[in-house]
C-alpha cells in the first residue's frame, strides 16, 4: 500500500471518530449493538459453514461492518435500501432478524427464499429492502428506478445501494448513474472500496486513487469517507441522503476499507500482502468504536458486555429455531415462477400407446 494512501486514511480516522454529535446515547449504543450483532452472526455462520451446514458461497463483511451499519442507520423509515452480499449489517439495521440469515444460509423451510436463492438475496419493498442478484452492478439502475417511483409517488424517499470497488467497472453502474443523474433522482450509491475484488486489487481495477471521482463523469456530488469509522459513515451518508432528498440528484460516496477475509469462506486471501493485512487489523471498526465509546464516556465496559450478551442470546435463540426447521418441500422449487403460478412443469407423462386415429 502506498505511503500516501496510508497517511490519508489516518487523517480521516480522526474526523471519523469525532463525529456523531447529533446522535443520542441510546442511538450510539444502538450502533454498537448492530456492529456486534453483524460480527457475531457472521462468525456463527462461519462456524456453520465449517460444520457443513451452510453450503455454497459464504461472504463475510468482517472489517466492513461500520459501512453497513453506519449507512443504513442514516436512513429514514420510508427510504429503500439495496444491500449487496456483504451488507448483512444493513439488513439488521432495517429490521431483519438473525433467524432469517440462518434459515436462508441453511436453505431451510421458512427461509426468506424458501431455499431457492442463497446468501443475502432476500428482502422486499414492504420491508424497505431490494435484494441483489449475483450479477454485479445491476442494482444501480434498479435502485434508480426505485428512486424514480418514489418521486412519482411523492414518498419523499431516498434509495441507497452499495457496490464494491470491482463492481464499479460494470456497465450497469455507468448506465444507472447516467440515468439517475439526468433525472436528478434521489439515489445514493455507496462504493465499499475494500481494496480487493476477489483476487484483483483495486489498482488493477482502476487508475483512480479515489473511486468517488467516478462521480465526475456524471456531474454529481461525491464524497470519500473512512469506512472503518461508523460515525463518519453515518454522517457522510446522512449528508448524502439529505442532498439526494433535497433533489440534488444522485450522490456517489466512497468508503475506504479493507476486506478482512477472503472473497468467500473458502478463500484464504493468500494474495493479499501481509503488511496490508497488518495495517488494517489495527483498524478494526468495532474495536475503534468501542474505544471511542469508552473514551468519550458514552459507555462503560459493562454496557458493552451487556450488549454483547444480548446479541449472543438472540443468536442462540434464533439458531435453535433455524436448526429445528425442516428442509423445504422439494416440489416447491417450481412454484411461484409466475403470479398465476401455473401448477405445471411436471414432465409431460409419456402418453399411453394407442392405435393411430386414421392409420
Amino acid at each position: 500500500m502506498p505511503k500516501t494512501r496510508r497517511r490519508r486514511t489516518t487523517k480521516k480516522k480522526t474526523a471519523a471518530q469525532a463525529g456523531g454529535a447529533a446522535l443520542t446515547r441510546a442511538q450510539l449504543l444502538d450502533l454498537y449493538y448492530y456492529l456486534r450483532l453483524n460480527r457475531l452472526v457472521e462468525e456463527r455462520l462461519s462456524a456453520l459453514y465449517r460444520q457443513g451446514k451452510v453450503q455454497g458461497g459464504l461472504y463475510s463483511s468482517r472489517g466492513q461492518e461500520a459501512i453497513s451499519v453506519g449507512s443504513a442507520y442514516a436512513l429514514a423509515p420510508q427510504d429503500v435500501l439495496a444491500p449487496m452480499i456483504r451488507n448483512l449489517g444493513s439488513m439488521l439495521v432495517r429490521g431483519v432478524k438473525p433467524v432469517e440469515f440462518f434459515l436462508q444460509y441453511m436453505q431451510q423451510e421458512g427461509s426468506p427464499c424458501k431455499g431457492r436463492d442463497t446468501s443475502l438475496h432476500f428482502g422486499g419493498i414492504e420491508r424497505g429492502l431490494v435484494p441483489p442478484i449475483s450479477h454485479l452492478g445491476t442494482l444501480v439502475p434498479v435502485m434508480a428506478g426505485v428512486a424514480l417511483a418514489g418521486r412519482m409517488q411523492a414518498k419523499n424517499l431516498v434509495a441507497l445501494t452499495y457496490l464494491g470497488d470491482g463492481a464499479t467497472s460494470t456497465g450497469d453502474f455507468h448506465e444507472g448513474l447516467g440515468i439517475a443523474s439526468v433525472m436528478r433522482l434521489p439515489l445514493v450509491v455507496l462504493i465499499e472500496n475494500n481494496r480487493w475484488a476477489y483476487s484483483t486489487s483495486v489498482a488493477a481495477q482502476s487508475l483512480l486513487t479515489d473511486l468517488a471521482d467516478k462521480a465526475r463523469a456524471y456531474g454529481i456530488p461525491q464524497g470519500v469517507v473512512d469506512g472503518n469509522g461508523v460515525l463518519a459513515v453515518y454522517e457522510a451518508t446522512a449528508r448524502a441522503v439529505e442532498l439526494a432528498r433535497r433533489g440534488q440528484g444522485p450522490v456517489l460516496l466512497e468508503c475506504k476499507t479493507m476486506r478482512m477475509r477472503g472473497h468467500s469462506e473458502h478463500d484464504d486471501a493468500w494474495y493479499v500482502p501481509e503488511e496490508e493485512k497488518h495495517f488494517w487489523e489495527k483498524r478494526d471498526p468495532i474495536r475503534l468504536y468501542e474505544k471511542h465509546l469508552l473514551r468519550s464516556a458514552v459507555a462503560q465496559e459493562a454496557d458493552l458486555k451487556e450488549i454483547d450478551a444480548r446479541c449472543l442470546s438472540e443468536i442462540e435463540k434464533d439458531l435453535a429455531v433455524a436448526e429445528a426447521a425442516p428442509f423445504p418441500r422439494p416440489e416447491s422449487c417450481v412454484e411461484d415462477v409466475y403470479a398465476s403460478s401455473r401448477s405445471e412443469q411436471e414432465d409431460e407423462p409419456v402418453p399411453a400407446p394407442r392405435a393411430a386415429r386414421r392409420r
Partner: protein
Amino acid sequence: MAEPVTYLEAIRQGLWEEMERDERVFMLGEDIGVYGGAFKVTKGFLERFGKDRVIDTPIAESGIVGAAIGASLMGMRPVAEMQFIDFIACAFNQITNFAAKSRWRYGAGVPIVIRGPSGGGVRGGPFHSQNPEMYYVHTPGLKVVAPGTTHDAKGLIKAAIRDEDPVIYLEHKYLYRLPRIKEVLPEEDYVVPIGKAAVRRQGADISLITYGAMQLHCLDAAEALDKEGVSAEVVDLRTLLPLDADAIEATAKKTGKVLIVHEDTRTGGVAGEITALINERAFEYLDGPVLRVTSPDAPVPYSAPLEDYFLPNAAKVLDAARKLAAY
C-alpha cells in the same frame, strides 16, 4: 371510432387507454417523449401525460430496463420501449436474471412491459430486423407475446400492462401501417388473454401453426390450398410463452398434419418446442412428420432480393404444405 385503424394505432390506443386508466402506468425509452418514438407509437403522449410519465432516457437499455424493474418493485407499471427490439440484447442480463427470477426468488413480482418493433421485411438489415423471441421464451419467469392482428395488438398490450409478470411485447414493424390488416376495433375496453392462441381459419387436413407477420402468408397459402381441395387450419399462437399447448394439441389431433411457420431463424426456433409438445401430446394422431418453414440460420440481410429470399412467404408455405398434405 368506427373507422378501421392500423396495427400501430391499435398499440397506441392500448397504451393510451392504460395510461388513462391507471396512473401507475408510465413509459420510458429513447426518443419516446418529444419525438413520440422512432415509429411514432407514443406520439402525443408527452403532451397528454407529461414528462413525469413519458420519460426520454439516455441511450442505456440495461439502465432503462433496470429502472423499470426498480419502479415496478415499488408498485408502478412501467412500459419500456426499445427503439428497435434488436437493442434489447443490451438489456439481456437485467431481463433474464433480474426481472425473470425475482418473484420465484423472494416473492417480488416485476410487472414490467418491454416493447419494441421486431421483425423484417422493411430492408432494415441485420440490426433492425431481428426476431429475438426465443431468447426470452427460453427464460422461465417471462412472458412473451407477439400479436399478428390489429385487434390483438391492442388487446395484448393492455393485457401485458395489467399482467403481474414481466412481459416482452413484440410488435412487428412490417405490420405497423399495413393497410391489409386495418381493423375496426371494439368501442369498449377489452384485453386479449396472454397464453391463448386463436384459430384464424378452421380446416380439416393440415394445420399451419404460426404467429406475427407470418400469419398473413399462412392465410394466403390456406386460401390457395383450399382451391386445391386441401382444407388448412391456421392457428395464431399470439403468445409464445406460455405456449397454448392445448390449442396446439387440439389442432394436431384434428388434422394429423402440422406445419409450423415462423420468421425467426430455424435452429432453436419455437418450431422445435412445438414439435416436442406435439410428440408428447398427439403423436398417435400424426399422419406425417411435423415440419417447419422458417428463416434460414443466418442474420437478416439488408438488400431487397436477399431479404425476400431469406424470409418465409406464402409460396414457401404453400410448397411445404402441399407436400405435407400429399404425404
